[in-house]
């Protein structure tokens, strides 16, 4: 097991290395001078030269790359052109918003997807199965921005059931400890604020969760069907166990594995989807920040976000794979 983990960790190193080269190239191949970009509207030849020296842009490329790597290893991502604050600070301020949204979307997708998938598997080829298939087809075919705008128009603008944007009513003042609205409100025992935060989360979480919902539904259905045809399930049935017990104890326990793997793979998609979802719902997170940074040509921020998102994606999948290997030792040798 340890050997497997070490092997997987070692395998991640060249990927990280490649990533750092690509991202370094991204900044340096961009049209224009990073120093001018950094100075923006205040660029004068004097200042530009000064900043170039400060950033080490007058050094040979390989030295600049090594310096960049060194910075990364110290957790220094540089500064935002727009706010002039350290990117890592800004990131940490916004990241909880993205996590809250992503987790909300996952809860929606898993909480609805697994029962739907099981239901469909139990009623194969029936009307219910057909409906589930249609839902999952729509889930992967409707882009987040179309679904998000539609939900927003119907439930916020027209019906006014749910808030249209933001993470919390601006009127509600809460103390920020962790920057997770739902956690901070609970820590302070501020229940109305908690529910207010929750009501803000619903629409964006549904919009973002629609694609994983479709995929999880499909996978659950397929994997339940696979397991149902396995011998031990037939045996269990033959023993006269109730259908419910068969479903709960025997089928789901074994159908879980592929479902969990797929959930792990969804993390990349969720982070990418957050970019669009947060923009639609004015959700203060890393995704909306990414779009702002793109629009402002704040490329140091874009570079850093791509790096961190890729890191998260790699780590989550490593964890999923290792967890998988724990449960299913055969995988280690595959």
């Amino acid at each position, binding site marked *: 097991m340890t050997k497997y983990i070490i092997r997987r960790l070692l395998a991640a190193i*060249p*990927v990280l290395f*490649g*990533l750092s080269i*690509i991202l370094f190239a*991204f900044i340096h*191949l*961009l*049209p224009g001078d990073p120093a001018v970009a950094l100075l923006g509207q205040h660029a004068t030849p004097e200042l530009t030269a000064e900043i170039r020296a400060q950033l080490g842009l007058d050094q040979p490329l390989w030295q600049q790359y090594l310096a960049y790597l060194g910075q990364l290893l110290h957790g220094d991502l540089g500064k935002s052109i727009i706010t002039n604050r350290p990117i890592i600070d800004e990131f940490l301020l916004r990241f909880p918003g993205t996590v809250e949204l992503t987790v909300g979307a996952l809860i929606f997708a898993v909480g609805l997807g697994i029962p739907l998938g099981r239901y469909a598997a139990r009623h*194969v080829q029936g009307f219910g199965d057909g409906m589930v298939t249609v839902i999952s*087809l*729509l889930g*992967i*075919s*409707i*882009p*987040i*921005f*179309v679904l998000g*705008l*539609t939900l*927003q*128009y119907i439930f916020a*603008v027209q019906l006014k059931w749910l808030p249209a944007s933001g993470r919390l009513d601006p009127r509600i003042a809460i103390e920020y400890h962790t920057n997770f609205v739902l956690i901070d409100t609970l820590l302070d025992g501020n229940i109305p604020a908690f529910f207010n935060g929750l009501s803000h989360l619903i629409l964006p979480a549904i919009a973002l969760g629609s694609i994983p919902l479709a995929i999880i539904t499909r996978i659950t259905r397929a994997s339940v*069907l696979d397991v149902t045809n396995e011998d031990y399930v037939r045996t269990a049935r033959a023993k006269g166990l109730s259908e419910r017990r068969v479903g709960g104890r025997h089928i789901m326990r074994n159908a879980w594995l592929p479902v969990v793997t797929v959930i792990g793979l969804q993390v*990349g*998609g969720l*982070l*990418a*989807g957050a*970019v*669009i979802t947060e*923009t*639609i719902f004015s959700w203060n997170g890393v995704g909306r920040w*990414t*779009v702002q940074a*793109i*629009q402002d*040509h704040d*490329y140091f921020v*874009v570079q850093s*976000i*791509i790096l961190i*998102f*890729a890191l998260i*994606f*790699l780590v989550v999948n490593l964890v999923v794979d290792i967890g998988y290997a724990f449960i299913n030792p055969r995988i280690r040798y595959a």
Partner: protein
Amino acid sequence: MATVAAPRARRAEARASRGLWRDAFNRLMRNGPALVGLFFITVFFAAAIFAPFIAPYDPIAGSLADRLQLPSAAHIMGTDLQGRDEFSRILYGARVSLFVAVGSVIMALIMGGIAGATAGAVGGKVDNVVMRIVDVMLAIPGILLAIGIVAWLGQGLPQIMIAVAATNAPIFARILRGSLLANREVDYVSAARSLGASRSRMLFRHMLPNSLTALIVAATLALATAIIDVAGLGFLGLGPADPRTPEWGTMLTDATRFIRQAPYLIFFPGLAIVVAAIGFNLLGDGLRESLDPRMKR
């Protein structure tokens, strides 16, 4: 090729594969959802090709005096913020979407194909290096990779095409390589190898055709995501360089500020994107089931 037996063997092989394709086609024609998908796609292609004949108005021209008109007999989908006919813009938008999506998938097939075939056929160090690059690209969430590339190359349809291609190419490379490796151990390939077939001959004559089915399915499904990604870039303000170009995602994002006054400007482009994506998804699923009967339940 040099042997006498070869032509006959090849013919037999070709006949067998023709049979495989015909079977697949027959299965596809019996697959209801896939036919629905095919229908959607046909509509989509027809709109793109015949836009100049169908469209009642010029998609670029219009007058501010006519802006934000509700759907009516004169403008069945209403008019947009510049007073242009929305229906005509949707039709021409199909052109843009189709051109960029198909172009990007072809480009991705070429890039991913070369990378995957090289990795799968050569193996060893080359395989390792290529697949690590693929890993790096796959680690970056799709739309972010596309965003980064458009930011780097600048706005414009060719740039968008490249960006979307870059998100699909590593997927294709991985699929092709995986399928090549799997095929390598299959009996007829081992047999051909033991008969002394050359490496390139093996690749082009035996392994690639058998890996093709997986790629066709993946490419069809990728067309759906390509259409969504192109619109997504437009939605994020990274659409075509000429802001007048009728591109569905750009049309959507321009309309968001007017969601109260003109919700139909959100509805129609949104519907167009969804229909196109559903079409390719249904066809892709259908192709998978037809090309690999084992998938069918």
